[in-house]
């Protein structure tokens, strides 16, 4: 949770603070909750709201670094999946993942998923998490990070393509490792 909050807020101290606040808020109403899993879910829900609040308050003050080399590396890797006509290389064509829902039940799958998130460039991961973890709309993400809409879409596409390939290679094994 602290790692997630730090990455989202780009500030270690503030990240720890919101986690602390979320836990306190959750404990304040603990009698309403039974069961450990429910409590965790609840704390995380509160945490998400607190992070969104902080991001909204900050508005456009967030520093956005320019496109790093890591982003370029990811784009190069993505390009190698295609031939000159921009169609999939036969070996690298995506193939259906075997029983993805069974994977969600396995602890090791989540380790692979976290690792795949960790290897994304920080800002790319952050935009992906704002969209898919916090459920923010693209407009809001663009405004918070002072990005154009098209840049936001480029970043989300890069993140999805990267995570897709990483999970394919790290877990599902449905495409050759060379892709």
């Amino acid at each position, binding site marked *: *949770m602290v790692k997630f909050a730090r990455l989202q807020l780009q500030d270690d101290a503030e990240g720890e603070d919101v986690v602390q606040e979320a836990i306190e808020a959750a404990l304040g109403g603990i009698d309403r909750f039974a069961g450990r899993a429910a409590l965790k879910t609840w704390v995380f829900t509160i945490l998400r709201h607190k992070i969104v609040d902080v991001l909204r308050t900050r508005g456009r003050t967030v520093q956005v670094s320019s496109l790093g080399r890591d982003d370029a590396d990811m784009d190069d890797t993505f390009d190698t999946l295609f031939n000159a*006509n*921009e169609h999939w290389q036969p070996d690298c064509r995506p193939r259906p993942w075997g029983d993805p829902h069974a994977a969600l039940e396995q602890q090791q799958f989540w380790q692979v998923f976290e690792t795949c998130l960790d290897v994304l460039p920080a800002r790319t991961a952050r935009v992906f998490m704002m969209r898919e973890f916090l459920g923010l709309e693209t407009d809001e993400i663009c405004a918070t990070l002072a990005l154009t809409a098209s840049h936001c879409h480029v970043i989300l596409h890069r993140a999805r393509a990267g995570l897709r390939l990483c*999970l394919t290679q790290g877990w599902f094994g449905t495409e050759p490792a060379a892709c």
Partner: protein
Amino acid sequence: MLTCKKATRLLSAGLDRPLTPGERFSLRLHLVFCRGCRAFRSQIGLLREISQSFVRWGGDDKP
């Protein structure tokens, strides 16, 4: 005719904004003939499901 690379961009954009009728049409046509892009579509949709499960389980303590 849409290339696969462009199709992946539209498939991703479709998760974040409504596609225009023209975009939807060219994408639908492409998907009829392209199983690679069909798999890509289903996998980026699964990424959304996976992310939601990840959040539901608290980010660092899975079932």
